[in-house]
Structures are given as C-alpha cells and as structure tokens.
C-alpha cells in the first residue's frame, strides 16, 4: 500500500458509490480450517450411497464405468489441471497435443475426419449440431426420433427455438423400437435441415436401419446427425461408415466418473467438408509447424469461427469447455487401445444380454420390450406381473439394489417399464442377484 500511495484499501474502492457497499455481513458459514472443511464435507458426502455400496443399474446418459488409476493420476497433474485454455501455444504444447490426440481418437472411433476438443455434454452438443445443420443447409426443420432422452429433447428445444428451427418427431415401430421409415419418408421435405438418430437408442436397442435413414436424409438434401455412446464403437459400425455428416455423443463413460451427472463430455465430430468445418462450434486444435518450419507443433485452429473474434456472428458462444475430461478420455482410450475398446464393447454387451436373458425368464417380466438387438441398456416391463415400476424400485432398494430408471411416464404407451443398464463393472454375481431378487419380488405380489 505504501508503494502505491494509499493508506487504506477503501481508497481503492473510492469510486464505487457508497450506497452499494454492504452494511452488514452476509449469511455465509464461518471460515473453517482445512481439517474441519474435510471433516464436514466427508460427513455430508457419507450420506450418499454409491455404486460401490450397492449394485446400481442406472444409465440413461450417465453411465457407471471403471476409471483406471492411471487416468486419475494424469488428470491430477497440476500442469494440466491448473492451466487455462491454451491461448499461448508455445508454453501449452502438452495440453494442445493431448487435445489433438483426443480429437484424433474420437475421429477413429466415429470414422469422421474432424472433431472439436469438447462440448459441455451430449444434450448441448445436440442443440449445437442442429443449429449447425440449419446454418449449413439454410433450412429450419429437424426430425428427431420419438425415442430420445427427454432431457436431450428438452435441451434441443431450448437451443432450437431462438433459431426458429422446428423440431418434429418421427414415430417408431411398436414391435422393434426401430425408427419408422414410413413416417420418416412422410415427414421429410425440402425444409428438413437434418435427420437425427441415436445409436444405440435412448432405450438401449441398436438402430439397425441407420444406413437407410442416412440415405433418406441425403436424398432430401438434409444432413444426417448421429448420437453415440462411444463404448459401443469397438463393436458397432461407426457412424462415418453409414453416412453420418455430424456425430455427437457422450464421452463421459470413457474415463470420467459419474459425479452425480457432471462434468460430462460432449462429443462433436464432422466430415472433412469445408462448408461444415467452418460452421462447427467449439475449440479445435490443429497440427502446425514452427515458423521456421523445422518442427511439428500444435495450436488452436479456425479461431475465426469463435466468439472472441466473431462475436455475435460466431458459430457458438462456447468458451470454457470440458478440456480436462477430454484428456481423461484420451488417456482412457490410450490405455485400452483398439483391442481394449473392442473388448469393452463385447464385455458390456455380453453382460447386458446375460441380464436380459435372466430377467426375461421371470414370470410376468418382459426384458427387453423391443425385439431388437441391445447393447448396454434395455427396457424391462412389469405389466405381466401387474406391478408398478415404483413398487419394484422400492422393493429392490429395501434389498440393497438400485433398479433402473422409470420410463413409464416418458413413454406411457410402453406401460410399466424401466430402463436398466449393465456395464463391465457389474459382476455376474450382481446380475444374478438382481434376477433372483426380482423373481422374489414378483412372486410375493
């Protein structure tokens, strides 16, 4: 203070009108020591039950997977953790290279050429993808499947409405859950900017006519957007090989904990088409060289799309994103490699299908509802047992198991149905315990 010639801190605030200064202290907690903070928060959090305390069969956009110790170690490196967006490329090569590798791995998984280094999550990525499709095609309608996560649909509506984009739903086949091509043909027109599907779908089945859907979209000059769960892409055909123009999805399951639903990691990739690439939202890292051409390096590319340069004409307002989650996913994918990712897909699909196999044997229980192949999630219907999902849930919880998500309000036409999720972390014993317990509950009715 003496150096800058002020006697009190208040002098530095002298320009703020007196009336705005707080005249009282705020209703905030008293400061605690580090030890007390730790005790306090640990005590609060110990009230939570975790998937280590009881088997939890929930998915629906946030999935329980194991996060290897190496991933945790790397993302806690403070050089990564405490850095900002790599504006100064020369001193941020580590982060830039890691994010370039993330983009590259996402491209390999999805068979696309360009990926950005993250969106907030799948839902907001969907909003951005639809707006991008509308800018690219200069059209203002999007067709989405009726079977879609309700939170993604709600998010899409908030993103689409100000851009005057109409969101229309395409019906599904009641037997199989598959998108109705007939309804799609009936609704698609020269107004359609994009057709969107999810694969696997929100209700867990594989959309098997993806290629045909893409062809219908393209025949009408619309873009084809596909939303993915990347853990399926070791065994399922990547969207780039069935015509997708934009691929979005949720990369949380690749190395990021559930964290009660956030942070998540939105995937965003597209084809190498300059019209599309220039309309992409978000940060993109590119390969370059030193000015003297001597060495390869990395820096942010195509910044002229972004808000700090283009302001109200930017392709998106996104600034801070989910970079460190992308680093976690990069480390995860590097650990698993091609072989590991294929095995991950196989393991999940085996276990989920084993669970369906056991549950479908229970009298009055239908698993899955749809006659289609399922990957890691599946619907379980209790109408035949005359039981409500809420009652099943309650009975399971009392026996130390957390059942699936109740979707009977979201899709009333499916009756008393829940969405179950099984991944590599669910042991055979836990799956069998679920089946046995459900069987008991149904028998007791």
């Amino acid at each position: 203070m003496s150096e800058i010639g002020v006697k009190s801190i208040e002098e530095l605030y002298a320009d703020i009108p007196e009336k705005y200064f707080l005249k009282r202290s705020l209703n905030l907690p008293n400061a605690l020591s580090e030890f007390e903070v730790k005790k306090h928060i640990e005590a609060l959090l110990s009230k939570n039950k975790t998937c280590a305390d009881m088997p939890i069969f929930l998915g629906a956009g946030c999935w329980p997977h194991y996060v290897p110790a190496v991933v945790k170690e790397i993302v806690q490196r403070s050089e990564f953790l405490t850095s900002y967006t790599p504006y100064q490329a020369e001193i941020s090569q580590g982060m830039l290279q890691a994010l370039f590798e993330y983009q590259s791995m996402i491209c390999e998984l999805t068979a696309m050429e360009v990926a950005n280094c993250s969106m907030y999550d799948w839902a907001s990525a969907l909003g951005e993808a639809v707006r991008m499709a509308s800018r690219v095609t200069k059209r203002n309608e999007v067709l989405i499947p009726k079977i879609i996560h309700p939170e993604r649909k709600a998010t899409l509506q908030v993103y689409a409405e100000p851009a005057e984009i109409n969101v229309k739903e395409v019906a599904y086949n009641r037997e199989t859950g598959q998108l109705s091509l007939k309804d799609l043909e009936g609704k698609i027109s020269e107004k359609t900017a994009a057709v969107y599907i999810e694969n696997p779908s929100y209700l867990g089945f594989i959309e098997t006519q993806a290629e045909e859907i893409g062809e219908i979209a393209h025949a009408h000059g619309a873009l084809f957007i596909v939303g993915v769960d990347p853990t399926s892409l070791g065994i399922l055909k990547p969207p780039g090989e069935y015509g997708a123009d934009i691929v979005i999805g949720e990369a949380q399951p690749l190395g990021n904990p559930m964290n009660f639903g956030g942070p998540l990691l939105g995937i965003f990739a597209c084809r190498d088409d300059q019209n599309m690439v220039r309309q992409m939202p978000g940060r993109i890292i590119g390969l370059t060289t030193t000015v003297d051409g001597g060495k390869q390096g990395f820096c942010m590319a195509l910044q002229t799309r972004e808000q700090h340069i283009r302001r109200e004409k930017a392709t998106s307002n996104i600034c801070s994103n989910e970079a460190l989650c992308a680093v976690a996913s990069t480390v995860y994918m590097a650990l698993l490699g091609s072989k590991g990712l294929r095995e991950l897909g196989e393991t999940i699909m085996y276990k989920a299908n084993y669970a369906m196999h056991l549950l479908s044997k229970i009298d009055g229980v239908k698993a899955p509802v749809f006659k289609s192949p399922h990957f890691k999630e599946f619907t379980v219907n209790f109408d035949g047992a005359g039981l409500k999902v809420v009652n099943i849930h309650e009975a399971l919880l009392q026996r130390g198991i957390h059942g699936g998500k109740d979707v009977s309000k979201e899709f009333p036409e499916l009756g008393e149905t829940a969405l179950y999720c099984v991944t590599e972390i669910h042991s055979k014993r836990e799956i069998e315990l679920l089946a046995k317990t459900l069987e008991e509950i149904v028998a007791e009715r």
Partner: protein
Amino acid sequence: MYRQAQWSEPVIFSLGKAGRVGHILPSVEEDVKKAVGDLYGLIPEKMRRENPLRLPELSEPEVVRHFMRLSEMNYGVDSGIYPLGSCTMKYNPKINEALANMPTIGLVHPYQDERTVQGILEILYKLERWLAEITGTAEVCLQPAAGAHGEFLGACLIRAYHKHKGELGKRQDILIPDSAHGTNPASAAMAGFNVVVIPSNDNGCVNVEALRAAVSDKTAGLMLTNPNTLGIFEQNIEEIAKIVHNAGGLLYYDGANLNPILCKVRPGDMGFDIVHINIHKTFGTPHGGGGPGAGPIGVSEELAKFLPVPRIVFDGKSYRLDYDRPHTIGKIRGFYGNVAVLVKAYAYILSLGFDGLKEVAEVSVLNANYVLHKLKALDGLTLPYNSEKPKKHECVFSVKPLKNKTGVSALNIAKRLLDYGVHAPTIYFPLIVEEALMIEPTETFEKEELDRFVEAIREICREAQTNPEKVLKAPYNTAISRLDEAKASHPKTMALSWRMYQKKQAAANP
C-alpha cells in the same frame, strides 16, 4: 531464466506396438458367454464394425510416460504467475481437489433415488443459497457448465420473461458495451436477439447518453460486466439500471469480474436481474486447460419461475428434485450441472467465510494496483482510460507507443514473457484498447512473484529498444519455438486430426 521441458514426444498414434494393451478389463465368465451365445450374431451384419479400430496400442507404462512428458510441456498456475486478464487465474486449493475426487461423489449416479443422495443434494442446495447471498439474487441455478452457458441461459430467461408478458415480438434488442467479452454478443445472438453495441466514453465506461439513445420499446435487456473489462467500476450503474428498466428491459450481469467486489458490493443491489458466476474464476476451481468450469446464474424473484428443471427443494427434513415447474424454459443440458466442480466451490466458501472472501476481493484489487503502479513507470506503455484512478482487479495497458518505436507488439511481449517462466497476460482484449495487455494478477500471488512479473516486463521493454529482433523471435525457452498459427487454419495445410493429417500426407506423397 526459465527452461520448459522439450520432449520431442511423437503423436501417440506413432507410439506403441500392435497388440499391446494398457488396461485389463474384468473378464466375462464362460457360462455368461454360453447363455448369450454368438455375440456378433446378435448384431445385424450391416451394423457390425468391419474395419478394425485404429487406436494406438500401448502398455500402461508407455501411456504414463507419454502423458507425463506432455504435462511437463504445459504451464499452470502451480508453475508461476498467470496474469491472464479476465480469467482470474488464482491458486486452486489442493484440499478442494481431494474432496471433489472422493468416491462418494464420483460413484453417484444422477438418477439415484433422492433418499440415497441426500449428502450431495444438501451441498448443492446450500451452495445455491450462499451464491444467492453473495450475488444479492433471489434464486440460483447451478446447471450451466460455464460462464457462456450461463449467459445463454440468462438470455433465454430474458426471452421467456418478455414472451410471458407478450412482448417478445417487439423486444429484439440486447444492448452490449463495446468493451464486453465476445461471449456476451455471441450468447445474445444464440438466444435470437439483435446485438446493439453501446460505445464506451472517454473514461472507459458505458456512454450513458448513447445508452439513452439506444433504448426503446425494442430493448430486451442490457448485458454488462462490472467492474468492466478495463477493470473500471461502472460508476453510473444506478442511472444505467434506471434507463434500461424504464425502457422495460432486464439487466444481465457478466460475473467474470466478481472477484474484486466479493462480499463488498452485490450485483443484485446494483439492480441486476440476472447474474452469472464463473465458478472457475472467482471460486478458485481449476481451469483444467479449458474446462470443466461451472457457470451458475442467480435471478430475481420474478424470473425464478422460468429456471430450468429440476430445482433442488428442502422441506426442513430432506432434499428433493422438483420437476413440477409449469413456467420452466426446460433444460439447457443433461442432469444438474458440473457437480464435481461445484463441490470445490462449496469447500472454497467454507474455507474462507465472509471475511475471507472479502479479503480475497481486497487483495486482488491491491495486487492489481500494485502491478499497475509499477508498470506505469515504464517507457512505451500507456494506460488508456481513466489512468489516474485506481482500477479494480485488473488493468489494461497499451503497448502502442513501444510498437511504434520498436516494432515490438503486445503479441511479441506476450511471447517473450514466456521465456521468463511467466504466463502472458490476455492480449488484444478488450477491443477498445489497441495493442492491449490485460493484466489480472489475482490475490494469490505474493509481492515477490508480482515483482518477478514486473521485472520481466521491464527487461522486455528495455530489450525492445536495444535488441528488438530478439523479442520479435521469442519464445526461446518453451517446449517449442514460435508456431505458425495461420498454417493450422489454412485449407491446404489444415490437419485437425491424425486421420486428416495422414490423408493429406498420402495425397502429397503418392
């Protein structure tokens, strides 16, 4: 001088060997396989992956070494001062990391029965209350993932408010000062508004006459940062608020600069209707190389009914997620927000309390003015706008005189600073300052570290006079020398993924 590690670390795709695996997954029992049968038989042929994945294949130690080397070629707040203006790069307390990494958060699913997540709901509920208290707003929504996401939500709420009043059709303008951050106009435009730019006056503040002339019955709202991006408090805030409110518009507060007024002055008391908070700036959570952060917003009572679902409610006994909000705008993302980040903010507030947060504000302002005072003495730098008055948390210098004399620009100074092991300030922002160096030291760097920064700038200014070539070619001590950023964006050379790079290489060398 500083020396950053210089590993010539190849892109990971060129490392490893086919068949290597760095992590073993749980096995699938034989009888599970038997019960399920032919797995690939379940997937219709046209949906099976045919072309093998081409991910790198490495052992666990190889993966660790690769990323350790990369981390050594990165600079963070723990490495040294990081005076990026507008970004509030303060120290991130380690205990907060430890707490947020606990399995009692990590292993909790967002759709779990409310009875099994009471601990985390209590933390989030209390954090909402504390942030409402700090911002002087009625209710807080924790869902936005970042500041810009909060802005988008805020702009959507402005939409919802005018729509509710039946005035959205005519209220299409959002007014934004020319000193604003790029996300403000981008967010307003994303929410469907026209952006009307309000010029600054000679003091670097909103030109009140221009504002008065710009408002009309088309005005939907004003987005303002206060203190603004020049580090100057908008003294006329009372009048500004009155003008906008009288015209029927709402006031939006960009909270990127909340740090210097924490627990001293509240945006709500200044008349703002919507306030976003950059948790990753003001509340000490790490930026993670670009994210994740969190951008909660606080709103006035009148706007609360439009907030996204669910709202966290407490009936005196337990916490619950309430989806029954007929006026809600819906959702702007999945689930409830960047919870792991929000827990760190909870720990931060708990560690500091009211007095501690106030001290954060005061020391951040003291540090900024200390650096300002030291740098003002340097030849070649000027301090446009209100140069005699103290600033708040940051100050913006122009290096135009130095550039005119020596050719050394703000960019060159930024690059040369890296050689000193000092992160560069924000450059070329705000746009109303030519050759801007925007400096925000924050409260967590002590006098010695500030002096180190000032000394580095002083030496660079001297070097610019004596040996400008040396400055122009900087940096020298970083992992890599000056990069050609234009090349990364040129259609011919653009390589945005390894796949794209290889395709270009193959085309060039058939």
